[in-house]
């Protein structure tokens, strides 16, 4: 799974690319865990998971988000989701994960660091 980590002031933006399904959810989890560690190490307040590169996420991927949120809380990092495509937007609504996470339609202040 391709991924990029982009610092932006008090925020670290992580952008995984691809599908999160039964074959890739563990790698997805590792990527996000690394994002939380990096954000904490760099003293950032927020980790934004940029979903613009995610085609689809299964229930395992969604549950990984729950574990990452808990890790974020433990590390003092708040987690937000951003830029879901139409399919992801529906999946987040159907699973009610849009009530667990703040979801922004676009990256807030993307590109400014």
């Amino acid at each position, binding site marked *: 799974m391709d991924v990029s980590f982009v610092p932006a002031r008090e925020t670290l933006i992580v952008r995984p690319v691809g599908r999160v399904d039964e074959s890739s959810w563990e790698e997805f989890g590792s990527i996000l865990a690394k994002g939380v560690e990096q954000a904490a190490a760099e003293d950032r307040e927020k980790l934004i998971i940029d979903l613009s590169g995610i085609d689809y996420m299964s229930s395992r991927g969604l*549950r990984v988000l729950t574990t990452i949120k808990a890790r974020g809380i433990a590390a003092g990092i708040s987690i937000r989701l951003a830029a879901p495509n139409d399919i992801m937007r*529906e*999946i987040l609504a*159907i699973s009610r994960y849009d009530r667990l996470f703040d979801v922004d339609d676009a990256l807030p202040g993307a590109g400014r660091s």
Partner: protein
Amino acid sequence: MTEDRPKRPFYVRFWGTRGSMPVAASAKDVREKIVDALLVGQGRTFASRQDAERFAIERLGFAGTATYGGATCCVEIDCSDEAFFICDMGSGLHQLGIDASSRCAAGRRKRYNFFLSHLHNDHLMGLPAFLPGRDIDSEIVIHSCHPEAEDLLCRQLAEADHARPQESWEAAIRFVTLVPRQQAMINGILVDTVKQEHPGGSYGYRFTTTAGRTVVYSTDSEHNIDDMHAGEDRFVSFFEGADLVICDTMYSLAKSTTTKEHQGHSSNVVAIDLCHQAAAKRLALFHHDPLHDDDDIQQLHEDSVRYEELTREGPPLEIFCSYDGLEIRL
């Protein structure tokens, strides 16, 4: 397993589909549906009762014209003329007992095989009111993976007999403790079990006929975040190719992983993912939250159908939302 002789019709009947406790529509609930229907149909005439029914369902949906019901878990798998196969004995068992008694009066054999998922009250409460239990000719065999089931149920029946001695239990009961993952042939049906995560432990059942048709009953089963790898692969294998999977879909995924975590239940999204991976043909949403009204359950069904469409990679998975009185022919 295939054979050349004509297949016996195979039905699955849902007698109780609610979890945790029985509920019932109130007078207010019913009146509101009637008033809504009158308002929607205002000014119209109908050629027949069927015409009116079609119109009502089209305009108001299932929740507006019916109810998902409120009896607790009881599912009949009508797959054998040798015996009744019944999963759990929640309050829905009362209605099943009345119906079964009339089928037996018409010649059906009076043998009842029960399969208990676990020993919580919502899955056992129907037994004292099971009408065939008052028939001395009934043979009742209760299968479970809980050795303590016999003691618990005998005490329950003794209490009920004490309260209503004029309606005492007459039928012979035998208890059979099954070994998880050890298949058993019971009255011509192959039965397999799988351990599930639920407080006190619960078990899922897989029933396969000699013609190879399969129904899986998997309720009160939580799919923990911590066990997503090996744990869920076990269920994909257990659900493999099933004609129908009946799954606990009590909570949204978000609720099941947060406020309801470790309470032993699951979500529609997980059930659909598992069924997709297993190439199951149909899924019945089951064990509805007693706090959900008919509109909430209808929304659950609509969301599930949409999620299946969004995530489908192979053949479509047909999704039913179980309700008290639903009969599915396989």
